[in-house]
């Protein structure tokens, strides 16, 4: 049996009185790419943000139920510790505008006050940028500001920044929705590579993307986890009529 890294038990999330994630039970196997798809407002991003405890930063946002990382409830851990273990890439590229490309990659160490030798930093920077498929494009301009890069490069820089911390899980919240098709393709290609070392959970709006990049797919509708299965199975032979309606485009 595959090793499960993230598992939830009757997980619920709220914005004030608004119940946005309802009784979700899901287990996510290690070194898999899991796509979370569903129409707008179905709670998929909220669910993702609950995994690394970013949800609770919004005023009035609460949640209940179990959210386990390696069988330990993340809501019993310190949020800072959780976020070191679970990295996140956002919808819009958000490199730190005051830092160079180099410093952006090691921002997690540098800004947390972790001191390292230069050689060690160089190694992390080269390693992370290579794994984010950005090294060749930026190796001669490491000390330029990260915001000089194109949107797609900025997003890969943000991925490099997240994986530089060696997280166990990487959450991606519609990472290509602000990118053009070519940048999207390069980020998607990257996800295949990253799966060797990390477990990826990617929220996407886009069914084709879910079908292309993921091993397993979860379909959320109105806050419920309707169906969760092998991606191939889900797209060829969905069990629930709501899933079927969604992937055949009857509603979106």
């Amino acid at each position: 049996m595959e090793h499960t890294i993230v598992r939830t038990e009757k997980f619920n999330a709220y914005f004030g009185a608004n119940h946005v994630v309802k009784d979700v039970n899901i287990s996510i196997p290690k070194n898999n790419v899991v796509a979370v798809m569903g129409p707008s407002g179905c709670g998929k991003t909220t669910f993702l943000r609950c995994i690394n405890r970013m949800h609770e930063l919004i005023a009035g946002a609460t949640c209940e139920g179990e959210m386990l990382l390696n069988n330990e409830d993340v809501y019993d851990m310190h949020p800072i510790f959780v976020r070191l273990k679970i990295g996140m890439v956002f919808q819009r590229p958000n490199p730190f505008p005051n830092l160079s490309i180099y410093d952006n990659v090691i921002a997690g160490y540098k800004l947390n006050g972790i001191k390292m030798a230069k050689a060690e930093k160089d190694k992390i920077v080269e390693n992370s940028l290579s794994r984010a498929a950005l090294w060749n494009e930026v190796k001669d301009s490491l000390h330029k500001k990260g915001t000089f890069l194109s949107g797609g490069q900025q997003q890969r820089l943000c991925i490099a920044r997240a994986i530089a911390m060696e997280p166990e899980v990487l959450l991606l919240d519609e990472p290509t929705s602000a990118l053009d098709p070519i940048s999207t393709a390069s980020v998607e290609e990257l996800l295949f590579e990253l799966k060797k070392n990390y477990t990826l959970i990617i929220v996407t709006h886009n069914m084709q993307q879910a079908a292309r990049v993921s091993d397993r797919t979860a379909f959320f509708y109105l806050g419920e986890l309707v169906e969760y299965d092998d991606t191939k199975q889900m797209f060829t032979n969905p069990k629930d009529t709501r899933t079927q309606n969604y992937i055949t485009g009857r509603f979106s």
Partner: protein
Amino acid sequence: MGPRIKLRIGKSTVFKTLVILFASACVIPLLAILGYIIKEGITKINWSFFVNVPKPVGEAGGGIANALVGSFIIVGVAAIMAIPVGILSGIYLSENKTSKLAYWSRLSVDILQGVPSIVIGIVVYFWIVKPIGSFSAISGSVALAIMMLPIIVRSTEETLKLLPDTLKEAALALGMPYHRMILKVILPCGIGGILSGVMLSVARIAGETAPLLFTAFGNPYLSTNITKPMHSLPLLIFNYATSPYDDWHNLAWGASLILLLWVLLLNIITKLTTRKWNIQL
């Protein structure tokens, strides 16, 4: 073209001309003041003007060293008091937009901005000068610091409000604690706007006279003791310009020019720093 269209075009031309005319009219007072002060002041300035203290009436020469040093000390001490408080309050206001404390402190800062400077001076007189029993530079600094606060608080708040929330999320998602996010991400990204607020507040108070009248009081000798009365440029101008002696009038003209140049320089530095430190988001 019908006559109605011609009339409209005519009206629009008249309106445009008026706008341009009044826009240029704004520049005239500044140029007039600058020109007059430079004309009157420039001939009075020489080396001894900077290094000597004023001479007694009837003796030629003398300078404004005491007022120059005094102004730097009084304004400097005021800045040391106002900058940390102002920036921290600004951070609080930008981070907590809706709390009760934010509402009340925003309101008080706005009202504080409108309090006449002479009123601040008289209050500080009763708070500090009277209990201690002596005029002092430090009490002048307190009065000026109170005047600087609203400018620093609001400019910090407005600058930080413009930073996108995604920036904070990026920092927190890397496991950064709150204080590090503020110090290492939010402040560096807003430093241009914050610095310009600080500079403008310094420029704003450099010429304040009223709050110093019954706090720093003035001193004909060079003093660096902040617990004792101290001279400052605006006080010197006030005292000497209203005196009946030509020698003292000359010193007042020279001092006016120096004060004006100081404020101008601060404004130019502000423009340059904002440009240099401006972070592209």
